[in-house]
């Protein structure tokens, strides 16, 4: 298929595809970070992850409506406020969920899967009853739309750049939190030895609650960011769940670096395949590839070999 294009065009293709892949990569990382914390650090399978994301998206929608109606002059910056609100809303719901439901189930990981699936059904119906069954369109400030021309053909999307920047910022923040702060040490201590962590005076219940809240809060931010590129409706969250889990599992559940590497691998594979094949087949091949690699290397890409 390359014979139809000139060399210049080919280099443009690769640049644009590379950029498309990077956007997809950022999207995957954003989706997976929250889950990687919850699943990787706590062992909880949160099937309602997508619904936490959509909560963030709805919060963004309402913030935009509020600014449109009451503070139109500040509309240009509403998105930042919306993201903070989305984080708080999803995080708060996450902590409530942990308190009411998850904390009773730490010894039964498969049961968390069923319970959170139930939660996701309930949340979907809540969204439908409260916000209506139709998708809502989130209006963006004009500076976030459009693209910057690089060459005649190559252009980079501003919202793509924004998502990438956000992804980097959140990833760095999470990494610092998990690996540098004392709170992060507590989380990792609880993960490694709950009893011992409790014995040395760490309030494990509190750590659990805040960890879960943090994961859900990040999901909320991700949902907020996705209003730029995707749809916001009661069932939109379900679109993400399989991809998200595969990214986390493929990366090796407990490693943040693994999650990022796996998001990178899967996104590049998918966006490259999409260019050469039709969208459906690209998706199928990517999924099959991930499953086959997981069969060969069930522990995921990055996992520290430990002695038992």
């Amino acid at each position, binding site marked *: 298929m390359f014979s139809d294009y000139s060399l210049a065009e080919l280099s443009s293709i690769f640049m644009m595809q590379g950029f498309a892949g990077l956007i997809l990569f950022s999207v995957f990382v954003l989706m997976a970070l929250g889950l990687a914390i919850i699943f990787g650090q706590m062992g909880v399978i949160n099937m309602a992850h997508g619904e936490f994301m959509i909560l963030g998206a709805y919060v963004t929608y309402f913030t935009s409506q509020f600014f449109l109606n009451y503070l139109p002059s500040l509309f240009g910056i509403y998105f930042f406020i919306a993201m903070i609100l989305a984080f708080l809303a999803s995080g708060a719901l996450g902590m409530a969920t942990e308190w009411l439901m998850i904390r009773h189930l730490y010894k039964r990981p498969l049961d968390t899967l*069923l319970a959170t699936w139930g939660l996701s059904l309930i949340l979907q*119906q809540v969204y439908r009853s409260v916000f209506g069954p139709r998708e809502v369109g989130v209006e963006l400030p004009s500076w976030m739309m459009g693209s910057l021309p690089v060459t005649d053909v190559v252009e980079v999307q501003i919202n793509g750049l924004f998502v990438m920047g956000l992804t980097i910022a959140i990833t760095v923040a999470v990494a610092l939190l998990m690996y540098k702060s004392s709170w992060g040490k507590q989380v990792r201590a609880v993960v490694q030895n709950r009893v011992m962590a409790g014995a040395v005076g760490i309030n494990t219940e509190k750590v659990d609650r805040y960890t879960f809240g943090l994961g859900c809060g990040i999901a909320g931010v991700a949902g907020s960011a996705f209003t730029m590129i995707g749809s916001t409706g009661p069932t939109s969250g379900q679109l993400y769940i399989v991809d998200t889990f595969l990214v986390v599992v493929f990366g090796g559940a407990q490693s943040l670096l693994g999650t990022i590497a796996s998001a990178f691998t899967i996104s590049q594979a998918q966006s490259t395949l999409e260019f050469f094949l039709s969208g459906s*087949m690209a998706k199928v091949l990517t999924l099959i590839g991930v499953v086959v690699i997981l069969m060969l290397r069930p522990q995921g890409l990055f996992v520290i070999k430990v002695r038992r």
Partner: protein
Amino acid sequence: MTTPAPTSGRTFFLRRQDMIGIAILAVLLMVVLPLTLDNFRLQFVGKYLTYAFVALGLALCWGYAGILSLGQGVFFGLGGYCMAMFLKLEASSVENTKIQTTPGIPDFMDWNQITALPWFWEPFRSFGFTTLAVVAVPALFALIIGFALFKRRVGGVYFAIITQALAAIMTILIIGQQGYTGGINGITDLRTLHGWDIRTDSAKTILYFVCVGLLIACILLAYYVKSSKLGRLLVAMRDKEDRVRFSGYDVSSFKIFVFCLAASLSAIGGAMFTLQVGFMSPSFVGIVPSIEMVIYTAVGGRLSILGAVYGTLVVNWAKTSFSESFPELWLFGLGGLFIAVVLIFPNGLAGLWQTYVAPRLGPLFGGQARRAAPPPASEPVAPAVAE
């Protein structure tokens, strides 16, 4: 799991209370329901019972062996599609399809410019082959997956997520390859089985009894497996996999077996579904129906074989009647059920029965032993991936 004293009375492989339980279920399904329900409602029950096959398989696979598959819909679908292919070919006789560009092939193929029957459809002209394929194709598929995953010691959460991905892959494939599969519409408009019109009320009643018969047979099979040494090994593996391995057992082969068995049971259900409902579509294959099927088993009590059947009936009956009266509330109900069955009554109906009803019924029903289930706190927390 119900741990009979080694000397307790059992005939062949069934304990007395099991036999009574099966007999009650058989009477309920074969006599009570057909006499009390009109044709219309009875056909609903027939449809629900096809899901009970899946739930039965999950009780063995998940309840006993601790392998949670979120892809049982794939097997239900494979079985259903095998049967649907046979029926579709019979419905696509040359004279029925003479308006098509290529008469004699299924209508959706004609719409997709396929001019000859694909090779893998060809054997489904034979009913014998179809019957075999209904069980064998899903079992083979499960064998491949099971072999690849269990030999690599993938289990627990990881297995659940991978099977979920498989369900997603399968759905996209079926929808995308519509020339060969009927796409999102599925294979519809199935009419006759060897000239016997399966759409009539009398045919549906007969199919209902066939379905019940098969279900009872599968229940007996499940009881046999459960009461055999293999059944005890499954429980042993679930709780102490390493101990079983270091007692000289090839653990993976047992997991593969039970996974294949569950897949075949699901497939039988799928085939009966196609026969009774008259079509098969990818909407049974995906993630959502697959997880919903898990809830049937969970509601029945994940360790109870008969509970799986009752759980299926109760959830589906609730779904139908609930959504007739309060369509908006059904998802709340279903979601709440998922949470309740995990948090409040983890042993499901069987657990409730055992705690509240059985003790009052006295020894005839096996007192505390019947459909007993240990608290699920002992569910494996072992690392999913063993190195």
